[in-house]
């Protein structure tokens, strides 16, 4: 039974169809991540959900009730903004207490005090409660903003890229801390981010937003291993998935891939028809060696750069096509870039995308 239903949502600005026919069903208590590149309409979508912006078309249903007509203050939805949006003329304490002091609630001052201190303690900001926003660090502002959005125990909390404006080190800590904190409040979380690693680390499911709608709604693993299109595949993974035009031909248990004269064989089965398509292969799924292995093709070494904990090799085929391959540090030490180099593709890991629509052909 889904708690939050988004049906055919549409919103345009003049001729720009920012959101068009967007659908999703979100379960109660789920950690639902909305992931999309900048400009994909994430902020607009959050504004539509929170009620600040009106829909052109479609219905938002929460707990079996259509809430399109509800004002923001009437929806049981709260939001933590990317730029914090703290009230500058109020102390952190009053910022956090604000939802509890809204008209429709009758809470005593003592109770408010207790709740504020509870949330502040959970988010480790009790020591800054008496300070004004301008005196707080970005990390503290973020936590204050979160405390404010969680204190009234809303049914749904919208988190708009909360870790974007926070230092890299603190971002990592909070990535681990946040899910634990949110579990305490038992709320349905809609978390928006541009960082695919964050999306994969935090989400029960990820909804990939571009072209105005959700193109994939699935678990992180499924999206990574089975993207619905090349566009989705490119959004997940660093370095980005290699992709190039090729002609494929099925030959018994192999698929022959012809890239402008260069040929490479993949040992795998597929239902895809012979013909032209776009082949995608992730850098970590390319095997690099100094010896010609089964089904390998010779390449020219260009550069190697470390990337996080792996080494990325830039290699070039004889026809000029460049590919990125990534290996672990240990594996890279076994490769001598002064000798000949060969690559082959890991068996089941290649993807075939339609040349025009870019959709996954499998």
């Amino acid at each position, binding site marked *: 039974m889904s708690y939050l239903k988004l049906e055919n949502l549409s919103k345009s600005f003049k001729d720009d169809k920012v959101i068009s026919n967007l659908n999703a069903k979100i379960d109660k208590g789920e950690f639902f991540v909305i992931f999309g590149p900048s400009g994909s309409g994430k902020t607009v979508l959050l504004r539509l959900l929170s009620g*600040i912006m009106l829909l052109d078309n479609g219905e938002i249903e929460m707990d079996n009730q259509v809430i399109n007509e509800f*004002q*923001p203050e009437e929806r049981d939805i709260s939001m933590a903004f990317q730029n914090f949006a*703290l009230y*500058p003329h109020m102390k952190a304490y009053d910022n956090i207490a604000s939802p509890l002091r809204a008209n429709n609630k009758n809470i005593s001052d003592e109770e408010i005090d207790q709740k504020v201190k509870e949330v502040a303690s959970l988010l480790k900001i009790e020591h800054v409660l008496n300070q*004004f926003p301008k005196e707080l660090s970005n990390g503290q502002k973020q936590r204050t903003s979160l405390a404010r959005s969680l204190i009234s125990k809303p049914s749904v909390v919208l988190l708009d890229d909360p870790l974007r*404006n926070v230092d890299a080190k603190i971002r990592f800590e909070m990535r681990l801390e946040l899910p634990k904190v949110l579990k305490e409040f038992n709320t349905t979380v809609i978390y928006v981010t541009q960082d695919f690693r964050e999306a994969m680390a935090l989400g029960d499911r990820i909804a990939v937003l571009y072209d105005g709608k959700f193109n994939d709604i699935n678990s992180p693993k499924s999206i990574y291993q089975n993207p619905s299109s090349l566009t989705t595949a490119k959004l997940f993974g660093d370095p980005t998935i290699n992709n190039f035009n090729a002609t494929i031909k099925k030959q018994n248990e192999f698929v022959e891939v012809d890239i402008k004269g260069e040929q490479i064989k993949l040992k795998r089965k597929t239902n895809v028809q012979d013909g032209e398509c776009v082949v995608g292969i992730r850098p970590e799924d390319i095997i690099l060696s100094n010896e010609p292995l089964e089904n390998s093709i010779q390449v020219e070494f260009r550069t190697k750069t470390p990337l996080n904990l792996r080494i990325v090799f830039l290699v070039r085929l004889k026809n000029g096509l460049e590919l990125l391959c990534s290996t672990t540090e240990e594996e890279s030490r076994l490769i001598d870039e002064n000798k000949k180099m060969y690559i082959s593709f890991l068996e089941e890991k290649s993807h075939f995308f339609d040349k025009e629509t870019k959709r996954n052909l499998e």
Partner: protein
Amino acid sequence: MRFNIWGVLKILAYIAIIMFFLFPIAWIFNMSFMTNDEILRKVPVLFYEPTLKNYIGLWKGEIAIEGFATMYVYFKQNLINSAILSVGSVSVTLLLGVPAAYAFARYKFKGGEDIAFTLLSFRFAPALLIILPLNLYFSQIGLYDSYFALIWVYQLITLPLLLWIVRGYFEDISPDIEYAYRLDGHSWFQSFWRISIPLAKPGIAAASLLCFIYAWNNFVFALILGSSQIQPVTVGALAFITASAIPYGLIACGIVVSVLPTLILALFIQKYLVQGLSLGAIKG
């Protein structure tokens, strides 16, 4: 050595500029404590015997001028009129202008910019252009010589001014702060009253002060559209110039008294003017 010369020259420049601006004011301040004889002396004197005769005369409503008869002065009433007109105008302007400024800042509606510009354009036209027709109309509908009419006409001056200043301040407030307040559970009006207005306080204060000054200093409208009953100090000062004598000391005194309210208001509002705007509530 180089440093010294520049420093001295700088100080001399400061003194010259300050003297240039303050001299007339200082002179008038002095004059208000002098009698006509002393003022009109051929050689101006730096030191003199200060007298409060002018001030007392202004207050009592009559003053004896040396060599002439007693002069009756209605300055007190003028002061009261000025106060009523200025405070009244600014109040009306605030009531209408602040919400309007908010509307212009936040909502993009058809013709919005055109309306805003039209309102501003009222300030471009010289008052003299409209004063005579206005006089005729007001007389016909019985609005001649009423506070209400003058306050209404003053809006032509004060309203555009406040709109354009305050609109900018509202635009500088991130809309997200207002949304956040709504999402906390507060209504639109509460967000406007408790978030938008406090954060735009510096702008509203500055604009109010300027509107007050313009209203207080207005001459033409008050001159033509009202009788001596409702004339403010600007017009009332004319009465000092009689066929028989010009009591300069009294006039100087009147000037000092007229300037005082505005000065006090400015000092009072200063603390609101100094506050910064976003105060670090938004990132960066």
